């Protein structure tokens, strides 16, 4: 009896913790070994018909036995010792790599110890003088190698018996399901046997279906997608690339997926299932599709559950992106209603791609929807309203001015959504004959109508008072005419003024230590940050206020209009603005009350 240098349990532990996603992969590993052996034999003998068999035998006395048989190349006694050495070598490294056929075989076989404490291997090489070899290995590291005298056909048989607690992994139903799950698309026949029943687990994957006309093909693919993912997809895009030799289907999701979402793609490597959750194979913007793909020429990682991040993968990813992009371009050219539906569902993905690909951008930018002060419309429609595309960069700013803009029939684009700002800012780069203009909301009042010379002279005192009243709140005042008339005042800020406001608020709440720090952090980024309150001379209340003789009353009125504008604009009040509101309201109520006394006999103080 021989022994490895090391306890196999340690390696198996390493594999199960760092390499494999779960014990069920043992089925895949054994299947992969069988397939590799057959492929190796076919290299010397192209006419050889390979076959793999998985058989579960339930025994009266004792646990079930799983036998995996292949008629592949088999191993000689020397090769058996080689793979044992590989196992010994693997224990000394922290990472596992599969250098060659024998090495891969050994690592694959090790996975059997995830579910079994003893593995028996009976193998006979195709070499003429080879004798059958029987290897029995145990997870405690002991093993035996025996040369058998009886002759058997070339190939390999592996026998496993579940260790306590792992019986479920040997249930016939489980093994049948797993062989189909991992190996269902293999071209080599894989037969599953239990008791009297025997069946082939193979089925034809979409990329090996017989040729059909595109319409029927699409229907068949969608039906397959429904059964594979339980989703009624919006479309099925056949995929084929040179790099990596990839083929398969990309299914368009029937619902919108978020910009940060990752779709679980089902990926096969040389027709064996590699992963149901492959990452890094598709570009970031391709989150609107879910794929079933077979890859022939990319390197898997050691766990064989994703792809090695190298030049080939990058190229393959680009090629896949190209397929999806070509599909979108085709739809844009041939089927406008499908394009509209696609854009409605997947605007974010399409915008994302547009930002990475100038040509695609040029093609699609006109059809992309944007929110504007005159309603949601495409860029093409926006250009019907205006020559220059005017936009704001935050939704907050949009809210401040959209009603005023709408009342004037002015079209302003709300670019305050993910990707929209970037998209709008690139318009002149990609279509140089178009102009864009970023609207500084705090400057908006410059567009309003000026008062006449006479009106300005008449309201000079009032304007000065407005400035004095607003100055402590870092706000400048304006007197203009604008629509809608019902709006007495409009408070607008820019990003810097907004930030200053949050700094003030934070200082009001923060521990003393932070007061100085916050000012210093803010001062690094701010230059001047004045907000604007634009009073509307078209509004009757403002007109009357401007003529009031009582300076105190006028001041109160201005203060209240200021606070009202803050509230209407959803700006949270700073402590002194809160105070202003309280005192101002109280004062106005006082003024409105007739001379009714309070408890202490005073009236109208």
């Amino acid at each position: 009896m021989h022994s490895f240098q090391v306890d196999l349990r340690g390696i198996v532990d390493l594999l199960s913790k760092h390499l494999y996603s779960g014990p069920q992969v043992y089925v895949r590993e054994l299947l992969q070994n069988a397939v590799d052996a057959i492929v190796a034999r076919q290299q010397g003998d192209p006419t050889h018909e390979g076959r793999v068999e998985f058989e579960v035998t339930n025994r009266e006395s004792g646990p079930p036995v799983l036998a995996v048989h292949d008629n592949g190349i088999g191993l000689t006694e020397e090769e058996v010792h080689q793979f044992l050495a590989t196992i010994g070598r693997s224990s000394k490294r922290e990472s596992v790599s599969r250098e060659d056929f024998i090495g891969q075989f050994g690592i694959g076989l090790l996975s059997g110890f995830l579910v079994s404490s003893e593995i028996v291997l009976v193998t006979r090489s195709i070499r003429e003088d080879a004798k059958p070899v029987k290897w029995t290995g145990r997870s405690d590291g002991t093993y035996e190698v025996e040369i058998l005298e009886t002759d058997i056909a070339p190939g390999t048989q592996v026998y496993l018996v579940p260790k306590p607690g792992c019986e479920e992994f040997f249930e016939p139903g489980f093994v049948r399901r797993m062989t189909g799950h991992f190996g269902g698309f293999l071209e080599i026949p894989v037969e599953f046997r239990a008791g009297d029943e025997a069946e082939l687990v193979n089925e034809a994957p979409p990329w090996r279906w017989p040729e059909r006309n595109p319409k029927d093909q699409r229907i068949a693919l969608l039906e397959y997608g429904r059964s594979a993912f339980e989703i009624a997809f919006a479309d099925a895009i056949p995929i084929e690339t040179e790099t990596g030799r990839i083929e398969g289907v990309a299914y368009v999701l029937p619902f919108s997926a978020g910009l940060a979402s990752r779709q679980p793609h089902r990926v096969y490597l040389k027709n064996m299932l590699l992963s149901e959750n492959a990452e890094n194979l598709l570009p970031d913007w391709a989150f609107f599709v879910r794929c079933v793909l077979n890859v022939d020429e990319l390197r898997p990682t050691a766990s064989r559950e994703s792809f090695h991040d190298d030049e080939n993968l990058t190229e393959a990813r680009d090629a896949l992106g190209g397929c999806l992009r070509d599909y979108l371009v085709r739809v844009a050219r041939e089927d406008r209603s499908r394009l509209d539906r696609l854009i409605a569902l997947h605007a974010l993905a399409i915008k994302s791609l547009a930002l990475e690909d100038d040509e695609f951008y040029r093609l699609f930018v006109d059809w992309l929807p944007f929110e504007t002060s005159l309603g949601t419309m495409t860029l093409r429609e926006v250009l019907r309203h205006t020559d220059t595309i005017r936009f704001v960069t935050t939704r907050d700013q949009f809210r401040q001015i959209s009603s005023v803009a709408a009342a004037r029939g002015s079209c302003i684009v709300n670019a305050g959504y993910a990707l929209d700002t970037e998209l709008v800012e690139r318009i002149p780069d990609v279509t140089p004959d178009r102009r864009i203009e970023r609207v500084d909301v705090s400057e908006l009042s410059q567009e309003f109508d000026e008062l006449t010379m006479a009106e300005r002279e008449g309201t000079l005192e009032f304007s000065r008072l407005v400035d004095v009243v607003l100055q402590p709140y870092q706000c400048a005042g304006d007197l203009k005419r604008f629509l809608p008339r019902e709006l007495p005042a409009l408070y607008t800020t820019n990003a810097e003024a907004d930030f200053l406001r949050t700094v003030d608020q934070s200082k009001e709440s923060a521990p003393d230590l932070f007061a100085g720090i916050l000012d210093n952090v803010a001062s690094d980024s701010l230059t001047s940050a004045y907000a604007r309150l634009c009073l509307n001379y078209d509004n009757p209340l403002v007109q009357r206020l401007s003529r009031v003789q009582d300076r105190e009353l006028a001041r109160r009125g201005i203060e209240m209009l200021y606070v009202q504008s803050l509230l209407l604009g959803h700006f949270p009040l700073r402590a002194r603005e809160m105070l202003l509101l309280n005192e101002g309201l109280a004062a106005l109520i006082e003024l409105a009350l007739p001379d009714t006394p309070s408890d202490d006999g005073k009236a109208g103080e």
Partner: protein
Amino acid sequence: MSSDRYDELLRESRNLPENPVRVAILEEAVREADSLGDERRSYEARRELINVATFAGCDDRAVVAFGWCLGYADRQGDDFHDLHSLLWSYKWIAGNVVNFPNVPRKQIESMEEDLGRRLEIEGYNRRPWLKIRWSNALDMGDLDRAVSLCEEWLTTPRDFLSDCAACDTSAHARLHFALGEDQRGIDRAAPVLEGRQSCKSVPHSTFGNVLRPLVRLDRLEEADDFQRRGYRLVARRQQHLDTVGKHLLYLVHLEHWDRAVRMFERHLGWSLESNEPSTRFDFELAGWMLFDRLAERGNRFRKLKVPEVLPLPKDDGRYRPAEIAGWLEARTLDLAARLDARNGNEAFSREIDSARRFASGA
């Protein structure tokens, strides 16, 4: 104003990657919460804002939101339920204020002390506090101090408030590189470079940090590999603008002009909107070196896709490299001067010289 709108804003923000747009949406949510007068939501929204802003390259927003949260926590006293999480983000804040040259040393130190005090009260050990003092010293160019603080940090055991192994490994390697100990730095970073340690931010910055050292060690193929893989990790993450700067400088060193110019174009917008001065520094320094060298090679007009706000005369989208170099030079020198003045040394000025030597192919 309604709590529906608040919920809607939070939901929408979670659909986005961590970038300034998401920060802006969360700031809206903060305003909604404040308008509702609901302190619990005001806290919740700011808490999320701190997280997102920190990873979106908006440290200034994070600090401001954090100040409010800390005050809220103090006011709540024993009723406060989120202390571990808040202290965790305090680590980021206390390590990021050093980013702002207008914040004097004294204030940085008092924040460190405050953090230390709170850790002690809550029963956490000193490791996070030791690390922050170490990393602030490193960031301010106090290399001797950093070296002396290093051992105590690393030998204090980890508890639930300590950074993970990947962060510590990557950080420690930076000290070696700053000291010019390239081989030791690479060795130290090995677990990260070999993929055995990783976390949310590692190896994103690590791969960028090893580029210059690997070139100095003449391990050029490895440098290329890390540049290719590392850039992919940071290309869409604004908090890593400084690492992008390291990639850019590497491309300048290799004289890959087209790739370098494209990288500059892609990220200049980040730099212009960034309010994190020392994060901008590496990027704008690299940009300056790039356009300086392009100017040396014949100051031809180049067509550049840069944001409208760039305050340079443009001729139909074409710029002269010397002008861009000049603009970046002014900004970088100003920043270096302010950072050095606050730090009381010449670390940033020396970095400019070092970058220039590297950019010229040394």
